[in-house]
Every structure is written in C-alpha cells, then in structure tokens.
C-alpha cells in the first residue's frame, strides 16, 4: 500500500514537471497566452480602480460634507435654552448651537498692534463638536478665542496666536458709540471650510454683542452703562447638524411638526439626486463590468480550452504510456493555472503602473484628490483567484473531455 502511495506521489510530481517542461518548450505561445490574459484583465482592473477610486471616494466625500447634514431655518424663530437642551438630547442631532439675530453677526476686526484698516467679518457661533471645523481645528473653547477663516486671516495678516481687536458699534438716540474686545486667534481654517471672511466664536460673544446693540450693558466685557439684560432669553435661530444623511428628513419633519409655519431648508433633494446619480452610475459600471468580465472569462476559458485541444496528442501519448486519467488531467490544469497566475500578476503590475500615471495626472489637475484610481488588496486577491478558478475549471472540463475519449482516437486523428 505504501509503495502505491509513493508511486502516485511520484507520478504527481512527474506530471507537474512534464507540464512545466512543455510550457517552457512552447515559451512563445505560453507568452502569448499570458500577454493576452494581461491585455484583457488590465483594463478591467483600471476600470474597477476608477470606479472604486473616483465614484466611491468622491461620493463619500460629498456625502460626508457636513454642510449636507445641516438643517437651516429660513427666517426667524424663537428658541429658548430649554429647546436647545431638548434638541441636544436627540440621538440624531450631532451639533446644535444658538444663532443671534442677523444684526449681531458682523463685527469689525483688525490686529491689535497694527494700524491696518479693519475688515468686516461674519461671526459664526461654534463650540465643542462643530462639524465644520472637524479635522481642521479645535473649536473655540473660551470667550476670548477665535478661529478665523482663511479669507479673514489673509485680509489682516493674522496667524494662530495673533491678538486681534474686535469692534462693535451701536447707535442709541442718534449717538454712535463703540466698544472693543481682545481676541486671540486659535487657528485658521482653509477656504473649503468657510469661503468668506468669517470668525468662529463661542455663542456667548454673539449674545454679548446682541445685548450691547439692543442697548444693554455687558458687564462681562465692560461694555456700556446701565442695566444688563435680565429677561428670559430667546434665540432667533440655530446652527443644526444631524449625525447621518438619513436623519435629515426625519429631523426636518420633527421640526416642522413643532410649528406649522416652520420652514426648514435642507439639501435633501440634492442628496437624493446625488444618490440617484450614484445608483445610475453604479448600475452602468456593473453593466460594463459584467460584459467585460463575462467577455474576459469566455475568451480566457476558450483559449484554455483550445490549449487543451492542441495538447490532445500529447495527452493521448501520456495515456498510452500508462498515466491514469485523473493524473493526466493535471497536465493542462497545471499549465492553465501557471498561465493564469503569470497573466494576472502581470496585469496587476500594469494596473499599478497605469494607476500611478492616472493619479499623478489628477494630482496635478485637481490637487485635492488623490488615489482616484486604486484598488484594495482584497480586490486584487479576488481578481487573482477568479482568474485562477476560471483557468482551472476551463482546462479541467476540456481535460476531462479529452481524457474520456479512447487514446487511440487522440493518437490517430491528428
């Protein structure tokens, strides 16, 4: 029994050796098969690389843009601290801070120790977890700190650490008066975060400005004389972001339900359009991919099949010499497997070369994107395995067929 097992192990080694010897002997046609495979597989890999890189990345980026998760209020409302607490308690809401009336949201700004002309900047209420600042800067955490947009920083030559002077004017009974606050620039965020001249501050500063412009004194900043505001406070608006895109519609409905006249503007429709676009594009890609993959598998399978047919005489000679059919089947299977492996590896190498070119081109043309054409290692592994399986199945079927016929036919009919 032992010798039988040994014998079949040596015949196994023999047939693999014979298959490799034949491949090397026919190196020209082997190379043609490898190149043909790589020529079909490479564009498919590039196509998938682009689909994965461009569409997925771009769409994800678009969908991850916090602006698309914002719910805006058109016009004014009246919201008290209790309302904000209630909103913050909702799971769907990622961030909400109060907005003051429009009149309170612009100030004049200039560096403390310079005589540069002052600029008008928009104040944006911010705070812990501000989605706009995420990934760019820490939100202002003290009443005296400010995060400037790049446009504001450029205009007054400010960098992180610069002390800036904010001026607020009011006109009461025909009399103009002006107060100041000293702020420290904590960070500067790029144009992509806020394209205009703007400054992110804690809501408390906005409230102080609103109070001052309404004619009250603000003891915290030592602004004005007389009474400080002491009534129940209402805010006229909010900055509100939900956690997920899918939450937008739901939270919007919730807000509308609170008050019938409540008008909310969301990008729900834009999101829907983007999603639709994604669906159509994915469907298109799937169709192209299906046709491409089917064509690839067919042509590759066919050439493997033809390869076995060409080997009929050799296979019959092996049968004549007493090799058993299952062992002989390994002859074309090993050959197809080796061709598939070489072709797929070559295609992957060419894919990497092409993707470097594509990514280099787009990096020059559109700086903010990188990795527009890329595949994950798992994608490459799948393409490798699929090619191998296809090769082995096609060769296996053809080999099964050709070892079933009597050896004499294969020997005589060629």
């Amino acid at each position: 029994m032992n010798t039988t097992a040994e014998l079949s192990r040596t015949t196994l080694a023999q047939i693999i050796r014979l298959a490799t010897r034949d491949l090397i002997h026919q190196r020209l046609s082997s190379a043609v098969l490898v190149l043909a495979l790589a020529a079909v597989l490479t564009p498919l890999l590039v196509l998938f690389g682009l689909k994965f890189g461009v569409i997925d990345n771009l769409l994800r980026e678009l969908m991850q843009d916090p602006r698309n998760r914002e719910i805006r209020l058109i016009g004014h409302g009246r919201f008290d601290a209790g309302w904000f607490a209630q909103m913050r308690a909702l799971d769907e809401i990622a961030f909400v801070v109060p907005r003051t009336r429009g009149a309170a949201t612009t100030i004049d700004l200039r560096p403390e120790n310079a005589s540069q002309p002052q600029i008008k900047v928009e104040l944006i209420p911010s705070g812990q977890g501000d989605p706009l600042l995420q990934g760019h800067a820490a939100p202002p955490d003290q009443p005296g700190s400010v995060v400037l947009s790049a446009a504001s920083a450029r205009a007054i030559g400010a960098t992180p650490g610069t002390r800036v002077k904010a001026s607020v004017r009011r006109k009461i009974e025909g009399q103009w008066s002006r107060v100041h606050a000293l702020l420290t620039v904590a960070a500067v965020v790029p144009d992509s975060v806020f394209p205009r001249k703007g400054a992110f501050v804690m809501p408390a500063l906005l409230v102080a400005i609103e109070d001052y412009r309404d004619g009250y004194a603000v003891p915290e900043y030592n602004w004005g004389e007389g009474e400080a505001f002491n009534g129940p406070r209402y805010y006229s608006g909010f900055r509100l972001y939900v956690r997920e895109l899918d939450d937008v519609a739901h939270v919007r409905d919730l807000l509308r339900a609170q008050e019938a006249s409540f008008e909310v503007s969301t990008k729900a429709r834009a999101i829907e359009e983007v999603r639709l676009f994604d669906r159509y594009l994915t469907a298109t890609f799937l169709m192209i991919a299906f046709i491409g993959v089917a064509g690839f598998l067919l042509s590759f399978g066919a050439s493997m099949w033809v390869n076995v047919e060409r080997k009929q005489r050799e296979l019959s000679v092996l049968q004549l010499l007493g090799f058993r059919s299952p062992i002989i089947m390994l002859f074309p299977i090993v050959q197809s497997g080796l061709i598939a492996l070489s072709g797929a590896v070559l295609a992957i190498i060419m894919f990497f070369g092409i993707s470097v070119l594509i990514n280099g081109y787009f990096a020059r043309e559109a700086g903010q994107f990188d990795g527009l054409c890329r595949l994950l290692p798992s994608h490459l592994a799948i393409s490798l395995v699929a090619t191998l399986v296809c090769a082995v199945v096609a060769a296996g079927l053809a080999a099964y067929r050709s070892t079933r016929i009597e050896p004499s036919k294969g020997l005589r009919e060629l």
Partner: protein
Amino acid sequence: MARNAAVADSVAAHWVFRLNGVGKTWLAPDKQFQLWVPQLNIRAGAQIAVLGRSGCGKSTLLDILAMTLEPDVCGTFSFAPHEREGIDIGKVWGKRRLDRLAGLRGRHIGYVLQTGGLLPFLTVRDNIELPRQVCGMAREDATEMLAERLNISDQLDKLPGALSVGQRQRAAVARALAHEPTVILADEPTASLDPQTAGEVMELVVSLAAQRNITLVVASHDWQGVTDLGMVQLQHKQVEGTGKLRSVFQT
C-alpha cells in the same frame, strides 16, 4: 526463421492474447467498415506480422490489442501477461475501469507509432526513460544500452524535433523497449523511412524483441520485408457483407 515458429508453437509458451469474435465497426464516408477477428491467439514470444493494404484495419487491430480502443463486439478478449490465467479485457472495458487499462498498458505494452509519438518537450533520454518512471522502475543504464544498439547514443540529450525521422523512429523503438514490456506493438514503424533505414530498424526491432523474449506484433504493408525476417504472417481477407465491408483477421 525456424526459431520464431518454434517459440510460437512450443508447448511451454502460454497464450498472451486470445481473441474470439472481437469486432469494431467504423464509418467511412461512403461505407461501413468492420474489423472482424473470429479467432486470434498469440503465444508469448511470437513474432507476428499483420499484413494488408492501408485502411484495411491493421491499426484498429493493434489499438484493440494495445487496449487503447474499445471493440464494439467482444466475445472473448483475454490478455495474459504472465503464465497465470488471462485478464478478461472485454469485461474491464465494459466496467469502464480505464485506470486498470492504463496500468496494464503502462506495464506490459510497448507501442511504436507510425510517426514516433515522442513527447516534443522532453529530451530523447527523458522520453525513453518515461515508461520506466511510470512503472516505478529503478533507473538503470538500460537507456544507454538501447541507445547504443539503436545507434542514437549521441542524440540522447536532444529534443525529438532536432532528430531525423529515422532517428526519431529508433528513439520510439527504444522507448517501447525501455520498461521491458510483455508485448511490443508496432504500427507501420518504418512507413516514413527510406527502404534501407526501414530494413535496419525492422531488423533491430525483431532481434531486440527476440533477445528479450518479448511478443512482437507489427503491422506492415511490406510483404517482402517481413518474409525476409521470418515473421509469422497474419493475412486479412475482405468479405463484402450486408452493406458493410468486413476485414477479417484470423489465425
């Protein structure tokens, strides 16, 4: 030569092949042909020449004997490589035990094809040694000895494509002999050779087989050649039957 006849008729030699009512039908463009063997017994060590025009079924008969072609009528087909009781080949075919047939072929049959049938991707040496490897036989200097006898010693490390037709045919003879088979079947082994080389190769085949007491069956259309070598002749006769042409071989 009387020696061959003596071996074939000796009481000691057992039957290697016993065929009784074995046939194979195939379709030619205009007619049905049938190879028909009413009775054919071949003793161990016999040297048989199957004679007939090309297309008369000589190759078919050899393929059936080599167990590479299944007869469609099979009364008795017994193959006895040793003196023990024969193996019922018809039954093995019937049960589709192709691996058993492959095993028998690999061990007991050496087949010289009309056009060599060497594997083009192996050197002549590897081609000759392959049958021994298939049988799990040890490496010996049998290859060199055979190559010397067949005058192809300096061709051993070349690929078959680099050899002349005659050298290739001699290499094929060496391959058929290498694993010391029970039977050598040769199908027009000299058809593609010039008359002089053909004569040399046939003489070598006959004498090498005789030395090793190997049963030899050669298909040939060369009446004169086999007569000179003193082989037992197996003639065929054609019988026009009902719609088909029968080619009958009988001892």
